Structures are given as structure tokens and as C-alpha cells.
């Protein structure tokens, strides 16, 4: 087990009518896990809490959110209870992070090569010439033409596709054990999207490291992931191997997502924000579920067999 997230709970701090802070549960006990060498697709609608979960695991929550509870065991250590200094040594070194594409990701005031050099020197003592050589090497293995020339470029001089390749290089340059990619291709044109995802997939396989791809696109999951975790309203409602879940989805939300993707996932511009969670009232998917009964007023248990599990009273999961 590379990363085991258990009962991750995060509150979003909203502002009340008198300006007082009002905590609203945004993640209500998220569970998922990643095995070394496998790629997990974390899917769900816009606002389901996918990115929030990733930020919480890396200790990067914004001031408007607060960690309430849970554990995130990374190689046996709980990331949620680590000091900021220890987390700094994990981030970028043992866990690489790829964020949404765009020029805004890279430091606009440093040259690309300098940023790749800096990413190495903050984590270990390294001779500058060696760091520069490694920077060029990773740029060329990220498929960036003329790496020596591009290393001298400022981020705003590069195309979005090249920028995202640099970001991927930054995430991989310290040879992490886990890579988290949060919507790595959002905002890119469709051919570049495929190129970046192919590259990401290839690098994860070549390095035999664990990966999390956060996406709203089930096609991405089907093509590039081994496992899938489906999030709905701040919970993982189903997790399992991609083939098994796609063949026999156990949770009604997963079923509806598979049957009417991509519109449901907001890819076609329509974004469905889940209703505010009311944890006392049982299953959070109940208001939208076609099969809901009185039983759903009680919070559903995690029903599972082996690696495939779903959070639904009526889940029938056949042993694989």
C-alpha cells in the first residue's frame, strides 16, 4: 500500500450572516488507497471534493478550509499529522504534484531551466552543473524539443502544451514514489490533451510509481487508469478496479455516470453541483437516486468484496 486515505474529513469555512465563520462539511470521510505501480482515477462531478482531497493530503488547504479528521498513510507515515517542515520534505520529493495547466502554474519571474534546477536543490544538495544537466535531460524526456534553448525561456514564452510538459518534469525530477495529477489536461486543446496523458501514463509505467489522476472524464479513466474511485458530495461512493467497476457498477451514481457520460460530468459545459450535504439524513445521493427507499434515510455502509466496494444499501458486488 503506497497511500491509504482513511476517513478524511475537511470543513469549508463559509461566512455567516453576521460575518462569523460557519464550518460546512466538504469532505465527509473520504477513503481510497493506491498500490505501488498502479494508477487510480479519482472521478466525480465538479465540486465533489476531488481537488480538496488532494490538497488536504499534501497539507495545501487554503485558509478557507480546515482539516477535521482522518488519516493519510503514505508509506506508513500519516501525512495529516506531519509537521510543516516534514511535509516540505515530502512534497515535490516523494510526492510529485501536477496541477491544472496554464501559464499561471509556473513562477512567472524565473526561467524554466532555473525552476527545474531549483526544484532539485531545495530537496538535496546538488552541484549546479549536474542539476542543470538533469533539468535538460528531463525536459527532453518530457518531449520538449531543443531543451537547452527552452531552459532559457520564461514561462510566458511557451505554449500551454510545453508548459504542462515542464510541470510534469518538475513533478518527476526528484523521482517521487507517487504522482498526483489534478486535472492535468484542463484547458488544453484535444490533441495536446492526448499527448500529455500518453506521456504521463508512459512515465508512471516506466518508473513503476503510483499515480492519482483527478478527472471528470471517464474516458481518461478507462484508457489510463487501473483503479477508479468515484466521489460524490465529499465521499468516495465506489472504488475498485476499472474493468470491474465499469462492467458491474454497484453504486447508482456510478451507474448513471457511466450511462450518460459525458454530460453528467459537466464536460459539456453543464456543471451539476451536488446538493449541500446533510449527513444526518442518510445517503447523500438519495435526493437524486431513482432507486431510493426509506432505508436510504440511514447512512449506507461500505458494501464490498475484496478490492471492489460501494457505499450503498443495495450494492451487490460479485467476487471477482
Amino acid at each position, binding site marked *: 500500500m503506497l497511500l491509504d486515505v482513511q476517513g478524511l474529513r475537511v470543513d469549508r469555512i463559509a461566512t455567516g450572516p453576521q460575518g462569523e465563520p460557519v464550518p460546512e462539511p466538504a469532505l465527509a470521510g473520504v477513503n481510497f488507497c493506491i498500490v505501488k505501480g498502479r494508477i487510480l482515477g479519482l472521478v466525480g462531478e465538479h465540486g465533489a471534493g476531488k481537488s480538496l482531497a488532494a490538497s488536504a493530503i*499534501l497539507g*495545501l488547504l487554503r*485558509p478557507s478550509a480546515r482539516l477535521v479528521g482522518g488519516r493519510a498513510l503514505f508509506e506508513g507515515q500519516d501525512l495529516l499529522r506531519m509537521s510543516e517542515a516534514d*511535509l*516540505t*520534505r*515530502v*512534497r*515535490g*520529493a516523494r510526492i510529485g*504534484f501536477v*496541477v*491544472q495547466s*496554464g501559464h*499561471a*502554474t*509556473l*513562477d*512567472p*519571474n*524565473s*526561467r524554466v531551466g532555473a525552476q527545474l534546477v*531549483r*526544484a532539485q536543490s*531545495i*530537496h538535496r544538495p546538488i552541484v549546479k552543473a549536474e542539476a542543470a544537466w538533469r533539468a535538460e535531460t528531463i525536459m527532453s524526456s518530457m518531449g520538449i524539443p531543443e531543451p537547452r534553448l527552452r531552459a*532559457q*525561456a*520564461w514561462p510566458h*514564452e511557451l505554449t500551454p502544451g510545453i508548459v504542462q510538459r515542464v*510541470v510534469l518534469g*518538475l513533478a518527476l525530477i526528484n523521482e517521487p514514489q507517487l504522482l498526483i495529477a489534478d486535472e492535468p489536461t484542463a484547458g488544453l486543446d484535444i490533441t495536446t490533451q492526448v499527448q500529455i496523458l500518453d506521456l504521463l501514463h508512459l512515465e508512471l509505467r516506466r518508473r513503476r510509481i503510483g499515480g492519482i489522476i483527478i478527472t471528470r472524464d471517464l474516458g481518461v479513466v478507462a484508457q489510463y487508469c487501473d483503479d477508479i474511485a468515484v466521489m460524490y458530495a465529499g465521499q468516495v461512493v465506489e472504488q475498485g478496479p476499472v474493468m470491474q467497476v465499469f462492467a458491474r457498477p454497484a453504486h447508482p451514481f456510478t451507474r448513471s455516470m457511466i450511462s450518460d457520460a459525458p454530460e453528467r460530468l459537466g464536460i459539456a459545459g453543464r456543471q451539476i453541483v451536488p446538493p449541500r450535504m446533510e449527513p444526518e439524513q442518510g445517503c447523500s445521493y438519495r435526493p437524486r437516486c431513482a432507486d431510493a427507499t426509506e432505508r436510504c434515510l440511514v447512512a449506507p455502509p461500505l458494501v464490498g468484496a475484496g478490492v471492489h466496494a460501494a457505499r450503498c444499501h443495495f450494492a451487490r458486488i460479485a467476487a471477482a
Partner: protein
Amino acid sequence: MERPVRALLRRIGVGLFLALVVVFTSFLLVKLGAGPTDLLLGGPSPGVEERAQLVQDYGLDRPAFVQLVRYAIRVLGGELGRSWLTGESVLSELLHRLPATLELMLYAILLGTLMAVPTGMAAAFARDTAEDRTVRGTSVLGEAMPPFFLALLLLLVFFRWLDIAPAPSGRISIVLSPPPTITGSYFIDAFLMQDSIAARSALAQLVLPVFTLALMLGASLTLLVRGAMLAQMDAPHFVYARAQGMSREMLTIIALRGALPAIGGGLAAQSAALLSMTALVEYVFAWGGIGQYGLEAMAKADFAAVQGFILASAAIAATVHLLHAVIRRLARIRIRRA
């Protein structure tokens, strides 16, 4: 011609145009606001014949437009007229007093920046904590306080009660004679002449007025630095820098570098407007710079001196903005040379 040079020339052109506007405005203000010019020019109580002579000499019977054109031509030729209070040439009086004011402003800008940048950065990193709120509250208070009031407050505490500051009697102790003029700054000149007593006295005289101005400038600059830093810290690239495992020091450098243009712009705007505060502080400390000169001229409706002061403050503001534009240009050239 290279583009930066052309842009610079254009800026200077704009500056000259603004100077004309200032000349026109100051002329108009005095014409409209100060009553019959011959009465002002003639001193406290001119006789009838004297007044007629003045009207004749200065062309006051001509239309206002003609007077303006003649005035503008004279100003462009460097002729600012004579003060009726002292009978001296306004230009030479301004030039004589300028170093005192510039010294005050320069030290205040340096000290204010040195105080504001670390404080604003610390407040940004401690966002919404008690420290942050304290910094913000103090800054708002400092911004809201009139400069002369703060000056008097500091005098009360450090001169009257604690008796560690010298009397507000100008730029050097009244028992000492000023050092020979080299740069115009008493402290630097005395230092260069190796006159340690005079240097120490000049420095002691500087402390309170510089501190007053630095606090006023620093208060608003602190809020500006805090805001600029927070804007950087909310930017995606900063969040990504954290995700890369950057240390606190590295993050500070990244945010500060991104915030520099905003901080520089704010500092330039505030420095350009600093003369109005300096004038009040000079008055309290009997500093004898152009600020005090201008205020006294206003109180006595000394026509030529007031206009000279307005022109001088416009020139200072234009110079500050020009300097800022040049620095910005140079910084951008560095980035474009990729």
C-alpha cells in the same frame, strides 16, 4: 531609435506638458483666489501711485490671457519672479532650500520602506492572526493621523518629556554654524569636513522629522506590501511552489519578487505625493526647506513664491515618476532578454 529610448522621451514629453498644465493651473488659482494682484505685490499698504506703477510695470491692465502667456514664457525661461516678502529671486531661494527638503524626503522614503516591507510581509504570512490585525490597525491609524499632529506628538514625548531629542530649531543646533555647502545636506557636508560635532547635531536634528515622515509613509506602504504579497500568495504559481516543497525562505523570495512591481508603483506614487506631508513636518520642525517656504508664502499670499513652490512640487513628482518609469523599463528589459 530603440523602443525604450523612445518611450522614455515620450515620458519626458508628457512631463513637460504636465508642467505647462501646472503653470496654467497655478496661475489661474492665484488669479482667481488671491484678490487684486497689485495689492499683493505692493506689500502691506501700497499708496495709490505705487499701485499704478505696479500695474504699469507688471502689465496688470492687460487681459488675463496675455498675462498668462507672458508668465508662461518667463517660467519656461527659468524666471520665477521675486518674492515680495524677501525681495529675493524665487528660483534661487527654492534651489537654496531644496537640499534640505530632498534630504528629509529621501531618508524618510528609505526608512519608511525599510520599516514597511518586512512588516507588510510578516503580516501577509500571518494572515488573519492577531499579529496581522495589529499591523493593519496600527497602519490605518498611522495613515489617518495628520502629519503635523504626529510630529507634535513625537516632540512632546521625545523632546519635552524624555528630553532625548533636540529642540525643533531647524537643521542644526542653533549654537553651531552650518558646514560649508558641498552636497547641501548638513549631515553629509559636516561628515565630509570631518566636523563630528556638527555632523552629530545635524543627524540628531534629522531623527524626529525623518521618523515622522517615515511613519506616515510606512503606514500606507505596509498595507500596500501586505496586499501585494497576499495577491501573490493566492496566485496558482505560489500554491504550486508550495506543492513542490519550497521552504519558507524560498516562498518568501518568490512572492516578494512577484509583488515588487506593485510595491514599486505604490512607493513611487506615495513618494511623489510626499512633499505635501513634508511641508507640514518642515513647518513644525522649522526645517527651512521648500515645504516650509511654500507654506509661509501661502499664509502671506506671496504670489511668486507660491507659484514657485507649486512648480517645484510638480517637478519633484514628475522626477519621481520618471525614475520609476526608468526602473520599470530596466526590469522589463532584463526579462525580455531571454
